[in-house]
């Protein structure tokens, strides 16, 4: 099924594959930056909690 | 910032709020006059929360902030006319009268930017006077004032309180002795 015609996309390969490639990049970036943002927020929260614990003791 | 602070003020009462710098004196005053919204708690006037009767409350109060809040390009008289004129119909003689009362009659026609800090404080006080509001909220009213100015200011405050007005004064130092006032120390 993966005939060479498929990859050629009827001559429009120059546009179709970069288009889908960029979409994957954007989706991946969204997921990656969201996860990084959550991890950073958790770290900051944990540090705040530890500092609060130090103050109480 | 401020936690668990509550105060009651009735006519004929002068409350002096003191405390070290950064203890939230000015913040408390700005919350009291409705400029700042408190996270918890409420400000009420005559029993109603001010969010309900905001305009009537503002019409009844006169607020003098830490800076004298004058437009440099306008003369002292114009500053007064535009500020007090927004609240009540007032004649020029009346404005000049209140400027005289605070000893700033000489600088009535001078642009505010050429006035000294003390003179600006007196013009700001004249504005509070001209508004004839029942509630005065003053932030450090005695700064930049010389001995005569301080005495004049205390006399005005006392007569305002005696005529049934109320006043909330923020000052990090002690008030002049002739003013009998309740004290509330934010540092405690």
């Amino acid at each position, binding site marked *: 099924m993966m005939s060479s015609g498929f990859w050629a996309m009827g001559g429009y390969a120059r546009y179709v594959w970069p288009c889908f490639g960029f979409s994957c990049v954007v989706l991946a970036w969204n997921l990656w930056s969201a996860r990084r943002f959550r991890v950073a927020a958790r770290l900051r929260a944990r540090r705040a909690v530890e500092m609060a614990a130090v103050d109480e003791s | 910032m401020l936690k668990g602070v509550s105060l009651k003020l009735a006519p004929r009462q002068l409350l002096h709020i003191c405390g070290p710098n950064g203890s939230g004196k000015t913040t408390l005053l700005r919350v009291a006059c409705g*400029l700042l919204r408190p996270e918890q708690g409420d400000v009420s006037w005559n029993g109603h929360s001010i969010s309900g009767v*905001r305009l009537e409350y503002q019409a009844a109060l006169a607020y003098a902030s830490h800076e004298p809040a004058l437009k440099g390009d306008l003369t002292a008289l114009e500053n007064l006319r535009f*500020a007090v004129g927004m609240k009540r119909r007032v004649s020029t003689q009346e404005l000049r009268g209140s400027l005289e009362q605070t000893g700033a009659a000489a600088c009535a026609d001078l642009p505010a930017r050429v006035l000294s800090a003390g003179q600006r404080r007196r013009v700001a006080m004249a504005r509070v006077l001209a508004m004839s509001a029942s509630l005065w909220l003053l932030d450090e009213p005695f700064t930049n004032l010389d001995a005569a100015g301080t005495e004049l200011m205390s006399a005005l405050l006392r007569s305002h309180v005696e005529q049934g007005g109320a006043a909330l004064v923020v000052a990090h130092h002690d008030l002049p002795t002739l003013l009998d006032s309740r004290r509330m120390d934010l540092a405690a």
Partner: protein
Amino acid sequence: MSVGAVAAFNLLVRRELCLSFRRPDQLLQPLLFFLIVTTLFPLGLSPELSLLRDMAPGVLWVAALLSSLLSLDGLFKSDADDGTLEQLALCGQGLTLIVVAKTFAHWLVSGAALVLVSPLVGTALGIPVGAFPTMMLSLGLGTLTLSWLGAIGAGLTVGLKRGNVLLSLIVLPLAMPLLIFGASATDRAISGTNAAGALYFLAALCVFTCTLAPFAATTALRITLE
């Protein structure tokens, strides 16, 4: 005897105008900017009047937008810095009246002045005299709408130090329909065809903005003041 809303409005507008005319250079700067920007285009394009005439509406309107934005930054900032804005907010008239009066006074000083200067720029760009009435009408409506959009932006950025660039970034996307209808109204006026369609859209946009923006601007100011 408290002061009625209309009396307070008039007093506040008088105050703003009095303050503006105390510093006439502040008034002239946006107009000079308007003139300078429009003289850039002939230098950049060509002195050929016929070519300029095609570009004239776009050039005129872009320059008008940018010069109005320049003067919008100071709408609330000068009063906020010296504490008078707090006094106004507490004078028992409500913040909306203050925002309406200040924005109207600002438009009189900047937008209306721009409309009066526009024939000068129009002739420089080869716009026929016949098109002047429509051009000035569309500029008047456009600058009034922009003053209101700018009031929202100024309200939001009054507390920020470098708020001017952010103000333009916020206001310009909202002002694009304005540019489209205004420029095409002027363009049709030049080509002699009936400009009513674009003018109606511009007027509709102006009425829509002038009715809703005061509340948005008041909320914006309350957010930064509180």
